[in-house]
């Protein structure tokens, strides 16, 4: 009996999957932001929210780019300075500074970015894998998105949230 059930389930799943495969082209929605002089982006679905800077508490015994932890409506989240993570000097807070709260599976963390730019839609075919010459050991760049005039580095959210210390 359970076999029958399984078959039915399989059929259902196939039906659900079918129309997606039939789609002409997949489009990724990205949120762009500046860190230093460079523009980066992450998929919009991985962003839980974007907030203005709030007070945080320093955590000892962590790398300098982990600024500390902050309270987001009762959850204690780590705060990571992307400038420092990318080897730049520590960011100075100004009115454009934002904390971007990114979620991947169960992992959530806040990232300090210098400025938001825009939300864009980009075809998946317009995303090239990161050039190997980049020397990106931590696999932090998911790919490079080509837009009319410029290139955007799309970050690998999973790698961003991976603890590397």
């Amino acid at each position, binding site marked *: 009996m*359970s076999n029958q059930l399984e078959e039915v389930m399989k059929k259902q799943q196939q039906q659900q999957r079918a129309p997606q495969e039939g789609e002409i082209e997949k489009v990724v929605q990205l949120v762009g932001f500046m860190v230093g002089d460079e523009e980066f982006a992450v998929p919009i679905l991985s962003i839980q929210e974007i907030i203005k800077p709030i007070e945080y*508490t320093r955590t*000892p015994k962590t790398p300098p780019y982990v600024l500390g932890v902050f309270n987001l409506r*009762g959850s204690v989240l*780590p705060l990571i300075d992307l400038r420092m993570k990318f080897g730049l000097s520590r960011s100075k807070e100004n009115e454009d500074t934002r904390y971007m709260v990114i979620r991947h599976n169960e992992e959530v963390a806040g990232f300090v970015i210098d400025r938001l730019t825009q939300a864009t839609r980009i075809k998946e075919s317009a995303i090239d894998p990161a050039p190997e010459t980049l020397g990106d050991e931590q696999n932090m760049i998911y790919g490079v998105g080509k837009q009319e005039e410029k290139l955007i580095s799309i970050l690998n959210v999973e790698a961003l949230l991976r603890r590397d210390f």
Partner: protein
Amino acid sequence: MDEFQEILEDFLVEAFEMIEQLDNDLIELENSPEDLDLLNRIFRVAHTIKGSSSFLNFDVLTHLTHHMEDVLNKARRGELSITPDVMDVVLESTDKMKGLLEHIKETGSDEGAVDVAPTVRRLEAILNGGETQEPPAAEPEPEPEPVEEEKDLSEMSEEEVEAEIERLLAQRQEEDRKRREAKRAAEAAGEKPEESEEKDLSEMSEEEVEAEIERLLAQRQEEDRKRREAKRAAQKEAQKSAPEAKEAPQSSAKPAAPAKKETKAAPKERKTTVEQTIRVDVKRLDDLMNLIGELVLGKNRLLKIYDDVEERYEGEQFLEELNQVVSSVSLVTTDLQIAVMKTRMLPIGKVFNKFPRMVRDLSRELHKEIDLVISGEETELDKSIVEEIGDPLVHIIRNSCDHGIELPQERIEKGKPAKGTVQLKAYNEGNHIIIEIVDDGKGLDADMLKMKAVEKGLISEKEADQMSEKEAFMLIFKPGFSTAAQVTNVSGRGVGMDVVRSNIEKLNGIIEIDSEVGKGTTLKLKIPLTLAIIQSLLVSVQEEFYAIPLASVLETVRITPDEIQSVEGRSVLRLRDEVLSLVHLADLFDVERVFSMGEHAYVVIIGIAETKIGLIVDSLVGQEEVVIKSLGEYLKGIEGIAGATIRGDGRVTLIVDVGALMDMAKNVKSSMQNLEDTQTAAEKSSPADYNILVVDDSKTDRAIMRKALEPLGVTITEATNGVEALNLMKEGSKTFDAALVDIEMPRMDGYTLAAEIRKFNKFKMVPLIAVTSRTSRSDRMRGVEVGMTEYITKPYTPEYLMNVVARNINLNVEQTV
């Protein structure tokens, strides 16, 4: 497949619950082997597990439980007396059953895990040994189903038993009705207990029906046997109606007696089992607990805001209303918190249940007679603690049995009853639960303990002399300390009481020990009800706050810097004949030293097990109940940090991990030397290189000051209040050479600002010039106290202001004018 899995899970949950009860019942049975209720209950467990496991195709388990069932059934019918030897085998098979179930839980199969063959053989031996007294039961039964030759009911197939039960029930109901009718005819007898009890089978609870069925089955079996004997005598006159007819008058006479017994048993049973419960995934409760935690934080915040508002709008009408809302919210939140905490609570009986069996085995092994008296098993504790408390308790009770209680001979010589008693008590005390383990054994000899400890080099002789009796008792928790004269199978195997102690301390619990030689020993464990909320001591180091679990704080002392001595590059403190090694929390956590050390520092003495150290902090903030929050996967396991909490102001405060802190302290060299301001001021080549900060909430006033300073040509930065000014200075993008400060400002006034600025080492020398219309002497005095350099009263001439500023920043006025 899923369906099967679901059934399997249900089966496992049920089976484990039953087995837990089974152990206790078996022990009880050994004491009162005649208790039929008990036997029935035990039989039922074996029977149920057998039924379910055969359904689920666990052949090994079925095989084992089948034999168990046979033995128990025999005992139930009184054909086998429960001797300790029989009990040993039954208990052994229970253990095997547990083993099999564990294996099933892990692998989903019962094969290859436990070898049940020897146990089954022993069970069979008992079975056969008993059977010799019984007449051979190979003759055909006068049953409606002639398919099988039947020995007894236990060998009937499920369906047959079912059918038999049906038949008996029907018969019983029939009898009931007859009896009732007879009674009614005779007299309306409402006051008789049987009447209400036996009114209707359909109104009985399941357990009662079950019990009734058991009783009827037993009765039926009894009758069967009699019938068989009668039959043998009458030479096989198989008449179906005859026994039926014989049965009727018999049973109508008989049930009256057991029925009375049942009325007594029934209400007791109802109390324990008819509770309405639902199973909830623990994760859901954890989520709920987290949400409540947030609510508690919100409440704390609300209280704080209320305090602020109260100060500012004293005597206003709305305050009273606000007060009411705030207090009712806080009351409800607290109740809610308690309610949810309670859903996570389990009775400690869950843990206590396994001890009767353990003590029984131990006493047989050690040839002692020990009675375990349990009380307060209904006391409730958080689930996570219940899970952790088991092992330490096992250790302690083993210890009491092995070292505490003497051999019967010895006890009699001492004039004590041969049977020793170990009491296990649990009760609530405030926010803690107390578990007491009391034995009436030989007690602890403080002098002997000291001697042993000195012998083993655990303490020095001098230490031993100064030790109080209680401290001496605590020696048994030292690693490497065992009082057992000889190593027995039970204790003295290296895992000792030190493990117990660290386990209890992990739960933020405390152990106390009390003993009298010859009288016995009392061990008292004090454990918090929940791990999610702890009492903590808040301390501050420079600008940072940390929470230290109060359970690990032994004491706090205030010291002056010169009390700190240095031995081999380490800071130590002499405290009441004791030398305590000190470590600065700022060194452990690399806190930036922005403030210079004040006149006083505080030492928080923290201890786990035997080690203790002094933690230097800048100040003690206070004691607070905090909700522990995890730091999440990303920051999990940072050295020295156990978690975080959110304080009333919404800020995150880290909770230190005392154990890790003590390890870290070993590797930290003190750097107590005061940081000198190493900043060398940049060369000033023109007046524009001088930065002056003007702090005033009035735009006009700022403009006047700016105008007055214009001739100097210095650079001016403006701030509208104290907070803004302080942030500007702290941020450090500009180094200010002087600040003009108004006194009355919103958010932070001039006095507070000055005091805050002076806390920083690098701002010690910055001239602060108060510019204010407050002219009284006391205002001036206060200005000096908080660290103002000059005091200018409004109104002033622009030249005067200019000169004062120029003088303070050493700028030659003539040069520029």
